[in-house]
């Protein structure tokens, strides 16, 4: 069966829709493009589509296959009309069926964006005033990402047509003259940057300036780790993105912006947070890591992996109007994050942008400082002597540099490497703490007893309508002996507190402690017996 077709006649929509039915489908997403009566201020009476059929069919099939592979959907089809169409006529039809709605929406979006961008199809508009014009179809910005420019080369041969399709940008040659003019940088420094591989963990408030400056500076390879989708509440501080991007994966958006800023940078994306099982392998592929998440677990995991792989790590974090900056050199005898704060604090202790609020430029300043530290390391520029924690208060614009005495930190517990090794081994043992359940009923049926570890006011605002006992996370350790026997599924709002509490319980000998991944926020009000709320998803 052809997944993509061109049709010069009206399309049988019912038949198309039926062809996508599948017993494993939980969702069907359909996009229809229609002919509208105006374009750019001119009244349109109709239009004509003309396709370079041979190429359009081959490329269309390729796009559908990409969408199926990329999003794991069960089936997808697309029909594009050719010939003369009137106002209200269907111009393009896309249908996707998938196990879940999210991938169906995303695959549908991918297909329409790629079709508009890549297919050699031209549109001639007929205006009420009697004249006509060929207009570009392929000027859209694709929602998911831009491939490197080289990959567009195979579309080049369609451009000889007279129709004003989008023209592939001419090859871009970066101009780094403003930085190579610096005596300490020069061509040799630029070559170091081009050869450098930097991993940026978190593409949020801190990560945006880091990614922009490192890409602009010509760092040859950038890795980006972020599991979040862009939320409207991110836009006041996350300057790589705009309002059209909401709901899309930040890694894809960031890749797209970097490709636009400096197409010579090679970008690798990781759309899931790193974990104890892969963090060392990933770090080993980079020369330097910049930690930009709002997640304490990630910061400690990054610290341990940096120490164990000898990869320099630039840490920063912000709180309201303040920030902290620490460079972990990962050299033997030099201090790490655990030399200051040996153990990851319980969630809630450290505050987050969601809970505590933050003024947008605060992560902007700290992220910019991280970018400077990263460039100083890569270029081997002069830096402050010794290791320190820098405190930045942007209300009184004060900074305080506190030297860290490595002999008073991990050195007392066998050294940073031994401490990191133990912490990572513990994290690996706890990797099965997070459990995903389609519903609370499934968890109960699987033999788990539910323990709600939220605070009483949170529970009152959104109670679980399922049998559970309630013990706030801070009191779990002291009440461990009173918990019901058997397998426990701890539940909090987002899954962070419950995961931390489950690990804590395991440390106290309660081996069958687990955490509901994603917490109450991940439950579906319709089938999980929790009332709906308007609370938005948290994001760094």
């Amino acid at each position, binding site marked *: 069966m052809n997944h993509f077709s061109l049709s010069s006649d009206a399309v049988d929509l019912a038949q198309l829709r039926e062809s996508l039915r599948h017993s494993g489908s939980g969702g069907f997403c359909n996009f229809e493009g229609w002919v509208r009566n105006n374009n750019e201020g001119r009244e349109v009476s109709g239009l004509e589509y003309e396709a370079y059929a041979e190429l359009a069919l081959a490329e269309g099939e390729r796009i559908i296959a990409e969408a199926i592979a990329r999003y794991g959907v069960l089936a997808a089809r697309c029909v594009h009309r050719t010939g003369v169409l009137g106002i209200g006529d269907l111009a393009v039809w896309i249908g996707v069926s998938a196990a879940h709605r999210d991938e169906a929406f995303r695959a549908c979006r991918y297909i329409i964006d790629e079709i508009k961008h890549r297919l050699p199809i031209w549109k001639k508009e007929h205006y009420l005033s009697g004249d006509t014009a060929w207009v570009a179809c392929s000027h859209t910005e694709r929602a998911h990402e831009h491939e490197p420019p080289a990959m567009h080369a195979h579309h080049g041969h369609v451009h000889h047509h007279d129709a004003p399709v989008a023209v592939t940008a001419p090859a871009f040659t970066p101009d780094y003259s403003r930085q190579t003019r610096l005596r300490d940088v020069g061509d040799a420094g630029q070559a170091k940057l081009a050869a450098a591989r930097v991993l940026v963990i978190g593409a949020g408030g801190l990560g945006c300036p880091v990614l922009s400056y490192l890409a602009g500076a010509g760092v040859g390879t950038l890795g980006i780790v972020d599991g979040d989708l862009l939320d409207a509440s991110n836009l006041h501080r996350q300057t790589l993105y705009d309002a059209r991007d909401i709901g899309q994966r930040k890694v894809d958006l960031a890749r797209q912006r970097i490709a636009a800023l400096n197409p010579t940078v090679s970008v690798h994306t990781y759309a899931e947070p790193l974990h104890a099982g892969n963090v060392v392998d990933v770090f080993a592929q980079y020369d330097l890591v910049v930690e930009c998440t709002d997640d304490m677990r990630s910061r400690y995991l990054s610290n341990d992996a940096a120490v164990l792989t000898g990869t320099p790590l630039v840490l920063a974090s912000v709180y309201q109007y303040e920030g902290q900056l620490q460079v972990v050199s990962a050299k033997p005898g030099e201090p790490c994050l655990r030399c200051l704060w040996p153990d990851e604090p319980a969630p809630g202790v450290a505050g987050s942008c969601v809970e505590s609020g933050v003024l947008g430029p605060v992560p902007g300043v700290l992220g910019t400082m991280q970018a400077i530290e990263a460039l100083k390391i890569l270029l081997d520029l002069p830096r402050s002597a010794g290791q320190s924690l820098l*405190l930045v208060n942007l209300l009184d614009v004060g900074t305080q540099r506190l030297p860290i005495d490595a002999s008073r930190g991990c050195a007392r517990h066998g050294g940073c490497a031994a401490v990191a090794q133990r912490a990572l081994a513990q994290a690996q043992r706890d990797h099965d703490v997070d459990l995903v359940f389609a519903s609370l009923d499934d968890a109960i049926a699987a033999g788990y007893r539910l323990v709600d570890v939220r605070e009483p006011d949170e529970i009152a605002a959104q109670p679980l309508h399922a049998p559970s006992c309630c013990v706030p996370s801070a009191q779990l350790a002291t009440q461990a002996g009173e918990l019901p026997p058997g397998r426990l599924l701890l539940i909090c709002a987002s899954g962070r507190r419950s995961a931390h509490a489950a690990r804590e319980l395991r440390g106290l000998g309660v081996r069958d402690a687990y955490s509901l991944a994603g917490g109450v926020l991940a439950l579906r009000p319709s089938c999980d017996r929790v009332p709906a709320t308007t609370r938005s998803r948290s994001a760094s």
Partner: protein
Amino acid sequence: MTTVNLQYYAQLREQAGTGGEQLSTAAATLRELYDELRSRHGFLLSSDALKVAVNAQFSDWDRALHEGDSVVFIPPVAGG
């Protein structure tokens, strides 16, 4: 009594309602000083979760207080 200059960061600043203050205290060590401040300002964090610095140097909690010390309490922060 010893007079010390205190600076608060992050959550502590918020809970104290000020970025810093001068205090006359009977506390002999940093630990005693922080215990006093906990009850005074209702700080939620225990001293294990904090770093303390005196006169721009990180310090142990057992350090004795001296007249005119500048003491900074630093909690870990996670925002990004």
